[in-house]
């Protein structure tokens, strides 16, 4: 598992951890049912507060990315298609926001923008 | 407690070398001297030096701030005080034995010191040399080394004057006269010294426990 904390960015540390672990789970670098580092162990290795890592893990568990076995630890939840689909939908939405922003920047109307999209999708076939 | 005593020992080894050198000098000189008459003070001066060591150790403690630091360690204030008293007692006993040995050696070479005179000297000097820590330790533990030092010098003066007066009263003007009840005085003096030492010990513990550093 690779985690890198950027102190200087405005993003809260728990958010950075959450995002990075999530990405590795979805991307497959972290395998299903793989044991994750303990909350306390991870915190001490990264030299941050364990409350921070606890929060990241809690978020991940809430979103269904990991599950806890009392006495054993936290494990990567089996990937399901639903999660992946949702993940990809989020990416599409982010890209669309970017498209809209760029379109506005060069003065394209909504109709013109949709034309470009249609054109691009036709190319894919 | 063991650790505290070890620390006192390290300090003595380093800082009280002069005392030990002077004590050795006195012991050797008094053993070698052939002249008649028992010079009370000279022979047993090393015991007085032993009596000064505990307060010297206390001065070093205050200077290095060991008194504050030891409060953070797993030892009680009573133990810190007791380490001083115990060290003092052990040194005293050691010195007394050495001084008695030196006097016996002198006697064996044929000087005008009798056994009873030796006994009397020993008894009185035990009392006198114990009085130094008995008086100065509680004062220094209560008021700190700076202020306590003033009281300490007062104590030394009183001790010297007192021992002179004591020897005058008990031995008369002539040091050749030994009072008949010399052994009783000697034993009484030693007991009194030890009892006072014990009381001073307890008093010091009480005073130091209540002190804010």
């Amino acid at each position, binding site marked *: 598992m690779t985690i890198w904390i950027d102190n200087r960015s405005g993003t*809260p540390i728990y958010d950075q951890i959450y995002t990075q672990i999530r990405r590795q789970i979805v991307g497959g670098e972290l395998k299903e049912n793989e044991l994750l580092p303990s909350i306390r162990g991870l915190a*001490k290795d990264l030299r941050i507060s*364990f409350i921070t890592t606890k929060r990241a893990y809690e978020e991940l568990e809430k979103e269904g990315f990991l599950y806890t076995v009392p006495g054993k630890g936290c494990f990567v939840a089996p990937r399901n298609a639903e999660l992946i689909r949702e993940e990809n939908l989020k990416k599409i939405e982010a890209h669309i926001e970017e498209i809209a922003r760029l379109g506005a920047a060069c003065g394209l109307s909504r109709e013109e923008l949709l034309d470009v999209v249609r054109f691009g999708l036709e190319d894919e076939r | *407690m063991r*650790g505290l005593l070890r620390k006192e020992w390290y300090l003595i080894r380093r800082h009280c070398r002069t005392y030990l050198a002077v004590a050795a000098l006195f012991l050797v000189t008094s053993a070698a001297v052939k002249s008649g008459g028992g010079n009370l003070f000279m022979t047993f001066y090393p015991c007085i030096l032993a009596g000064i060591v505990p307060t010297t150790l206390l001065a070093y403690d205050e200077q290095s701030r060991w008194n504050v630091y*030891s409060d*953070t360690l*797993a030892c009680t204030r009573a133990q810190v005080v007791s380490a001083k008293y115990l060290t003092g007692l052990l040194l005293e006993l050691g010195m007394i034995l050495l001084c008695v040995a030196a006097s016996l050696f002198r006697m064996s070479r044929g000087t005008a010191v009798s056994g009873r005179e030796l006994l009397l000297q020993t008894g009185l000097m035990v009392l006198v040399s114990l009085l130094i820590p008995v008086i100065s330790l509680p004062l220094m533990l209560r008021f700190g080394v700076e202020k306590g030092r003033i009281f300490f010098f007062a104590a030394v003066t009183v001790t010297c004057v007192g021992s002179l007066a004591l020897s005058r009263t008990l031995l008369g003007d002539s040091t050749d006269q030994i009072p008949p009840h010399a052994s009783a005085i000697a034993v009484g003096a030693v007991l009194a010294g030890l009892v006072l030492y014990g009381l001073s010990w307890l008093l010091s513990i009480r005073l130091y426990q209540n002190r804010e550093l």
Partner: protein
Amino acid sequence: MNALEIRGLKKTFSGFQLGPLDLTLPGGCILGLIGENGAGKSTTIKLILNMLRRESGTVTILGRDNGQDLRSIKEEVGVVLDEVGLPDCLTSAQTGRVMEGIFRQWDAAAYASYLRELGVPEGKAFKEMSRGNRMKLGIAVALSHHPRLLLLDEATSGLDPVVRDRVVEMLADFTRDEDHAVLLSSHIVSDLERICDYIAFLHKGKLLLCQEKDRLLEEYGFVHGAAGELAAIDSAAVLHRSEGRYGAEAIVLRRAVPAGMAISPVTVEELFVHMVKGER
């Protein structure tokens, strides 16, 4: 079990009053006590150890009242004050032998390893050591008797950044065990900011706050802009505002900032300085 519980702790000196203080250090946590010089950090730690007599309040260390059997409580507490009061003539090895006779659980092997790791010189008398080396020796001693609670008072000031980093790492390792806790008081905040779980601000003897560090940093933010823009923010939510030639800046409660205004993250140190300025 809470490592440390302080309730209503109070002590009055001439011209200064500490408390009443309420502070809890949960087990397995690191609490950073931040305050300017003279705020009362050292006094608080001395009161915890009963080195000074308190006027009122209770102190519970590792579940035990600090008035009872303090000696055996101190077996499990490692303390480093801003000055290590070892006798001038002692070397590190001699110090180890003295401590062996004081602490029941003294670990000579651990002591030797800490000395090596921190780079404490062998064979040198204490008075010949630099301030940094003295502190390192003090830290080695405090860690070597299997303590469950560490009380460090300004223990890292006077150490170079490399050693400070190593000490922070040692503290992180120490608290891997959830039975171990650390109370760290300092006015150098930057090292500790990352590893502390809780932050407490002490100012003129009063506790301004004691909170989870993460929550604290989420609650407050840094805003800057034209003086007029900042005036739009409710003054009750502003910790402190300062105006300069090129604009104004302020630390504010994030929830009070109007939408659209940029908020930058704030550090614990900035938060403390502004909070103190706001108090005046």
